[in-house]
């Protein structure tokens, strides 16, 4: 009996000590976080952030109906983050902001540091330096509940039923079981997969599995959605389904980060981009502005007869079915069009030549 009392006492004392140590550690961490918030908030450049609320969407789309609710002025602020692994710097001094209701493209070739950046954004790994603020505060557990993340390396519990997977992973985002069940049913209905709800994930096709992955990402009604290579391995039909869903979520005011190495995906969907190469930012800003900035200052013209000697055109390159006219400094393309029409030329095609994102990337990297 004495032994029992002794051991129970010893265990109680040890437990109390451990508990106290943990509590202190936690308190210290909270204190440090609070201090960081107070000290460093001024160092972030938030001038470019939108202060507007959610963007009202004109068309009532399916996904936004399912995951509706109050959308706040979602903002991500990343300031000067860097990360090294084993002495090799994979992300160097990156900064960007993300506004509510926009699709932001994180673009770069494989191995550029995109996934590492997103992992830091999700607090899965910590940056060596710099600061990340989501919804105006440092990343905390509560913040994670408002973010939907579709990583590049993704999967599901193969032996678990589809609904159970959706509900369990939504529960981990602090969604009540009953709400999670309702939402899972609604989402499955939207993608026409309700009939598969009782199936095990392993019984689904690869494409179906990827759709479920996407539903897991948005099942908890997130305000910020982070998608890392979301179209990888998808067939055209499922690709279109997810693309429409992403654009619908954008219209409902969600902030979306789309990380990809496929440039035309970015051109189709993104409002602003950050292009990175070898961990460093090479291009950042509004996509149309970037394309304007990197334009060739040339026109693509296709007409029913040959033309030459047009004022303001310094060079003409014949491509067979169309010609490319290079303009002199400060020449307005409108003047060229007026001249052509004035000469009685029937113009079939007249467009200002803009380089593809791929061309811009290659040009920048070569430089």
């Amino acid at each position, binding site marked *: 009996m004495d032994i029992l009392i002794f*051991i129970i006492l010893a265990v109680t004392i040890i437990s109390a000590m*451990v508990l106290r140590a943990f509590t202190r550690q936690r308190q210290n961490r909270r204190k440090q976080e609070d201090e960081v918030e107070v000290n460093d908030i001024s160092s972030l450049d938030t001038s470019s952030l939108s202060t507007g609320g959610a963007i009202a969407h004109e068309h009532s789309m399916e996904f936004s109906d399912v995951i509706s609710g109050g959308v706040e002025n979602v903002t991500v602020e990343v300031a000067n983050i860097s990360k090294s692994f084993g002495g090799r710097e994979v992300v160097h001094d990156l900064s960007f902001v993300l506004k509510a209701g926009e699709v932001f493209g994180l673009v770069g070739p494989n191995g550029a540091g995109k996934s590492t950046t997103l992992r830091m954004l*999700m607090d*899965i790994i910590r940056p060596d330096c710099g600061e990340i603020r989501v919804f105006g505060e440092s990343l905390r557990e509560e913040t994670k509940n408002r973010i939907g993340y579709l*990583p590049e*390396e993704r999967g599901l*519990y193969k032996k678990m039923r589809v609904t159970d997977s959706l509900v369990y992973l939504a529960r981990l985002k602090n969604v009540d079981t009953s709400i999670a069940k309702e939402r899972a049913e609604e989402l499955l209905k939207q993608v026409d997969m309700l009939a598969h709800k009782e199936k095990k994930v392993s019984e689904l096709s690869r494409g179906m599995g990827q759709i479920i992955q996407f539903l897991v990402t948005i099942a908890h009604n997130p305000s910020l959605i982070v998608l890392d290579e979301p179209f990888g391995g998808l067939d055209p039909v499922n690709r279109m389904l997810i693309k429409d869903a992403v654009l619908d979520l954008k219209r409902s005011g969600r902030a979306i980060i789309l990380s990809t190495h496929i440039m035309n995906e970015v051109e189709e969907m993104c409002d602003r981009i950050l292009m990175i190469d070898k961990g460093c930012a090479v291009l950042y800003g509004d996509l149309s502005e970037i394309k304007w900035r990197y334009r060739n200052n040339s026109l693509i013209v296709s007409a029913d007869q040959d033309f030459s000697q047009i004022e303001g055109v310094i060079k003409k390159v014949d491509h067979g079915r169309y010609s490319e006219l290079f303009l002199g400094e400060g020449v307005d393309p409108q003047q060229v069009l007026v001249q052509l029409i004035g000469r009685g030329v029937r113009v079939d095609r007249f467009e200002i030549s803009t380089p593809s994102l791929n061309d811009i990337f290659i040009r920048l990297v070569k430089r």
Partner: protein
Amino acid sequence: MSKTWIIARHEFTITIRRLSYILLTLSFPLLSVMGIVIYGGVYLLGGEISPDEKRNIGYVDNTGMFVDYTEMGGMVLIAYNTSGEAKSELLIGNISEFYVIPQDYMENGRVSRYTTKREIELPASTIAVIEDFLIANLLSDKVTDEYIVRVASPLNTVNFRLDSETGEVLPRESLFRVLGMPYIFAIMFMMSLLVTSGFLIQGVSEEKENRLMEILLSSVSARQLLTGKVIGLGAAGLLQIMFWFISALVLAAVASVYIAPLADLTIPAGLVVFGIIYFVLGYLLFGILLAAVGAMGATVRESSQLTTIISLPAVLPIILIGLFMSNPDHIVFTILTLFPVTSPVMVVMRLSVGTIPIWELGLSVFIMGASVLAVMWLAGRAFRTFILMYGKRPGFREVWRCLRQG
């Protein structure tokens, strides 16, 4: 409900529904029932179990000296004139075996034994009866019957064990209690400990292999994930052990009617209390260690191979059970009680047959607790670092650097 508890509940529910868990949980009671049924069958069909049943043994005495004392130890000795006669009786089953005592018996003591049964060694109880029969006949007319009995059985030990501190006589322990209980409890304990830890590593490896880790870590921290898993699977392990204990008590009570040693099966209160404490500590130690190792392996298979190395030391006390039975107070067992990896199984083995000094238990619990905290700290670092490393296993240098730098 906190996320840790959501994970714990999920892991618990998933585990107790696993076929392998259900089969293992039911295997001990089922095997015990089978054992009892087989034992009962042997008991009912005969053999050397019942002392009341008489067996006929034949003998051919060529010396003419062995005629008396033909009923001994539940056996009836029937004399035959020739070996052929005894052989015929043996073949038709009237006798179970027969002995031929040659004329020159007094010179060399040689006696031939004939049986139809296949035996690996001679049946000790029958041989003892034959020895008594020979001794009794050799001494008859020379000494009194009491003398004959005493010569046949000169030593009937009544063993007493005194408390080393108070000098008081301690209660007698049956052979089953001394030999069987430590073995059974140690095996049960170790199985549950390693199987539950195995589920933990399997879970971690599967989630890593199925690329689920990053999705989980976007909702919970690595610590929440690890703690939730450890709690959920630990609860499943405790449930298993409790089921085994209760079924062992019920089965022992039922079977003790015709298996006398089982009546001695009592589970000491100390064993229950410390069993739970050491299960929790042992499970935490192995579970966290194995989860960290699981995070390093690229596949479930690779992780399982790595964990075998860690699990092996836990079996050491069972390997040394021979030495333990003859000398349970040996210094080796004190060392194994204090060494964290062997401590849970060793403590359970020792407590199933007696007590352990207070200082030893206290120190052992303290070392275990400290080891759990240290392992938690180190394994947490490894878990966080390697859980997202796909396609390759980290080398020793990488692991060392991770543990050193965090």
